[in-house]
């Protein structure tokens, strides 16, 4: 056996979480190989040029959740990562008005009062609740989820930490927290606000990427999942990575390589090799075989377990639980090269809010209806869209004077229904064009000249996202963020601590706790678990340790 085929750890998949795990392990002195099926790295945190002169953030498009502990540990700024916050956003109405969201509290209050004086007052209470929930949850992101059925000291310790934190809230605040975690974003907003447009604007974050509607219990948590990030300490702030989201993956990869890591692109894992319940390495699609006593999979749990491991190697109960893990495709994406800045007739000149996230949903019920379409296999007639033009802030994304636009679309089912048959195979050119037309119609509410501005457009249905990135059903979180799949239930009960029933095999993607988003936490947590279990010194160093 040739020595160059042997590593201490092999990471399957060069998404940002795989790279994060790899970078931590390389820094701890391990020989790490990352294998990637595509010719490029980054997974869903990627920048690609599909039309000359323009760079697209093809999948994920904005940054906030990336844990700062990880950015510091891996020295990402040194390797070129610069995140520029954008301020504000807006929802446009069908009658030519808008609701603008400013990060400046007073400006926001004034704007809210323009729509509802009551809501302007209510915002203080609302933002206080959200901020408290963010503060409560953030420390858990870089910790393991305890197994409630285990009496292991580590689990008891984590459980004790949870109880201590919860107790520290006081019984009233704890009650509010439990309520917040279990309620729907629609009900939560209805408790605070009266204006439909304001509620619709705020609700979007509760449904992005999920197979739930704004009135499904648990969507308040999904909102939190989008608010608990920060940029330079500004909790809840979002920004653009200069050069697109790929800049994040590239910086992590550069940090990894500088510490001796190797990345092998262009051939995916065919099979994760194991013998007698112990992992041995990976066999690639191109026939190469690499050996290592530890393999960490950045693929989602369904792909890892159901496609790349011999079923005979795993307990049936476990395989069944994985099969029942819910990963539902619900999002599509348009990436658009624009010849110049589109016209937003409603917006005042030189306003800052156009540099933020723009929407056209009018009410919570419109959003809920969009969900009803999805349930029966249709994309929404009036989808929720989250559109941004990052080239206003980051000029590297498009030629001078031209712009790049990213449009996230919720809901688009994976298995769409055509002629009574539900199947992902139905996503052909015709269907992709049709959904693009629906989305462009919806966008015209904000910028009526959008169709004339398009130079090039990439339409990504859930099927494309699955095929290219490898995310099952194109689900952006590698698994629904519902209570039954979060914390100690993620990905499946009993296996929430990154290891899998084959010794030496770990999960480092966002199917694991704490879940999806360009966060890096599952990767860092997996690295910590690997170092603890597989090495003698056992400790990870750094802020995320």
């Amino acid at each position, binding site marked *: 056996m040739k020595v160059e085929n042997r590593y201490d750890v092999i990471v399957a998949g060069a998404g940002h979480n795989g790279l994060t795990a790899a970078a931590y392990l390389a820094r701890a002195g391990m020989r790490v190989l990352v294998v990637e099926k595509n010719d490029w790295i980054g997974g869903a945190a990627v920048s690609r040029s599909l039309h000359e002169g323009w760079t697209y953030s093809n999948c994920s498009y904005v940054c906030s959740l990336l844990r700062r502990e990880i950015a510091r540990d891996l020295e990402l700024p040194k390797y070129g990562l610069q995140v520029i916050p954008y301020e504000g956003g807006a929802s446009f109405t069908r009658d030519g008005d808008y609701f603008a969201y400013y990060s400046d509290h007073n400006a926001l209050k004034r704007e809210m009062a323009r729509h509802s004086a009551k809501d302007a007052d209510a915002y203080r209470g609302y933002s206080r609740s959200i901020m408290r929930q963010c503060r409560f949850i953030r420390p858990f992101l870089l910790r393991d989820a305890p197994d409630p059925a285990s009496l292991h000291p580590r689990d008891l310790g984590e459980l004790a930490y949870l109880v201590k934190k919860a107790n520290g809230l006081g019984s009233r605040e704890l009650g509010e927290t439990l309520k917040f975690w279990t*309620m729907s974003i629609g*009900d939560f907003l209805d408790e605070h606000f009266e204006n439909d447009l304001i509620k619709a604007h705020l609700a979007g974050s509760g449904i992005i990427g999920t197979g739930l509607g704004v009135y499904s*219990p648990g969507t308040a948590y999904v909102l939190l999942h989008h608010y608990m990030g920060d940029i330079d300490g500004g909790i809840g702030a979002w920004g653009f990575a200069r050069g697109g989201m790929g800049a994040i993956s590239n910086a992590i990869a550069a940090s990894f390589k500088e510490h001796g890591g190797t990345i092998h692109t262009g051939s995916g894992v065919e099979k994760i090799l194991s013998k007698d319940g112990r992992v041995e390495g990976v066999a690639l699609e191109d026939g190469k075989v690499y050996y290592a006593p530890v393999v960490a999979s950045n693929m989602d749990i369904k792909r890892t377990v159901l496609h790349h491991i011999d079923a005979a190697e795993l307990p049936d109960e476990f395989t069944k639980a994985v099969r029942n893990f819910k990963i539902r495709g619900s999002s599509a994406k348009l990436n658009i090269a624009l010849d110049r800045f589109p016209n937003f007739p409603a917006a005042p000149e030189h306003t800052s809010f156009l540099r933020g996230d723009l929407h056209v949903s009018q009410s919570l019920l419109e959003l809920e209806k969009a969900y009803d379409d999805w349930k029966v296999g249709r994309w929404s007639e009036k989808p929720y869209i989250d559109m941004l033009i990052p080239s206003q802030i980051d000029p590297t994304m498009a030629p001078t004077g031209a712009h790049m636009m990213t449009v996230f679309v919720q809901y688009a089912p994976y298995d769409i229904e055509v002629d009574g048959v539900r199947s992902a195979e139905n996503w052909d050119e015709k269907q992709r064009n049709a959904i693009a037309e629906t989305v462009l119609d919806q966008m015209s509410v904000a910028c009526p000249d959008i169709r004339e501005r398009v130079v090039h457009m990439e339409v990504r249905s859930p099927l494309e996202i699955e095929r290219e990135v490898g995310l099952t059903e194109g689900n952006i979180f590698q698994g629904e963020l519902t*209570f*039954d799949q979060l914390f100690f239930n993620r990905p499946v009960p009993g296996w929430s601590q990154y290891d899998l029933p084959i010794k030496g095999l770990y999960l480092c993607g966002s199917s694991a706790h704490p879940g999806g988003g360009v966060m890096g936490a599952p990767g860092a947590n997996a690295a910590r678990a690997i170092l603890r279990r597989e090495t003698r010194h056992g400790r990870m160093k750094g802020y995320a340790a």
Partner: protein
Amino acid sequence: MSQFDAIIIGGGVNGLIAGTLLGRRGKNVCIIEKSNRFGGMASYSVDGGPTLAHSLYNLSPRVLSDIGIDPQHPVLSGKPVSTVSLSEDGRHIVFKNEGVFWSEGAKHPESDAWTDLTQQLITYGGLLRQLAEAPPPGGQKAILSRGGLNEFLRLAKLGIGLKKLGKPEMRRFLQVVLSNVHDIVLDDLPEGSVAGMLAADAIWGSATGPRSPGTVFNLIYRLGHGGNITQPAGGMSALTDLMVEAAQKAGCVLMPETEVFRILLDDDTVSGVATNDGRTISTPIVLSNLAPKLTSLMTGHSIFDIETTRQFRNIRARGTAAKVNLRLKDSSPLPGLPDELADERLIYAPSVGYVEAAFNPAKYRQMSKAPVIEAFKMQTADGASWLSTIVQYAPSDLEGGWTETAKEQLAEITVETLSRALPGLGDQIAGKQVITPDQIESATGAPGGHWHHAEMSLDQLLTLRPANGMSRYSMGPKGLFQCGAATHPGGDVMGLAGRNAALAALEAQP
């Protein structure tokens, strides 16, 4: 001026139980009811038609023993009924304790999967029942006090119960209980009538669809006492009559046709109630069977802080179940239904997707055009034959209101839907009664006509029921307690809310 040790406002099931229990513990109790009839929603009926509730599945044996009703009483020894899922092709599906069968007798291929899942949920229900039979955990009691110790022991017992399940089952419990019924059922069963039956049983009386997270909890709640369904001999009013009798035996004074308009306070302590007929009745303890918002109207908002009154307003209670009673021409068998199934519980819920689709319109204040239906064929005291049905979804806040036309439309939809499986049913119908949620509200006071006075969603359960900081039955001023379905553990003709509230009142003021 009369004087009592305790006054119960509202003579529904929970009010009767709370009063009886206090009476049996030596208190001098008065139960005040605004209508001329005790039993509340359970035995409410219009013009002698079938009652609102038409079957028993969750009545707590612990409550029965606490109020001195023999569980073997003839009224309670009604025959257990099976559930029949009606099918358009005439091959109905019968759910029995022994499994699932086709109506012609052969075993259904999904029988074992259904039995396994149901048994698992019944086991979980048994565990959760321990929580239901006491105030919710999280009180501010010192661990070494008697109450604190009891609570600790109860939680420890639950913990041991969970441990006894074994690690994998314990983990599964913690996942399943938070999940939605659509996923849990379709993980183990193919889409169709068997799955549809479980989906339907998870949504009765609630403003949720099978895909809503938390609906498995509703199903477990329904199965909390084993899941057996019976019809009391003599109907629901026979049962509530039995409860009235128990209350009288316990020395309670029953005061029908009396409306309380004010709960009187003296120095933030309950001193009595004032009634519409001008009487003042003094008492140190009031248990209100009404929803919190209505109770707070009786005390006046000013005694609660604004945060609390806002909480009352935000309690979600949107009734979605209507009662449609179809009077039959005679007692001849229903068309398309074998004789031996004539008295069983009939449901129309051909698939999980059907139930979800039925829910959709309710979100937008519309009635389902293809609703989920539960039906019993029964005879009322006057000898008339009825098909008593619960029709979902029919939201209390229907757009345009529940006009006569809207009610007529709902009745037609009901007959049409049932006729798909029972062709020719329309020809047998001699009359229709439609009782909509808003009507239930005006008759019983239940907010939105909601069966549980407050939606049984995860954010309104246990310590959060009816509202955060108010889950242990006492409410604001000293001596004021709530004992209705809006409190832990919730409604159904179960009685635990009333019982727990009475015990809490006794503990606070022995």
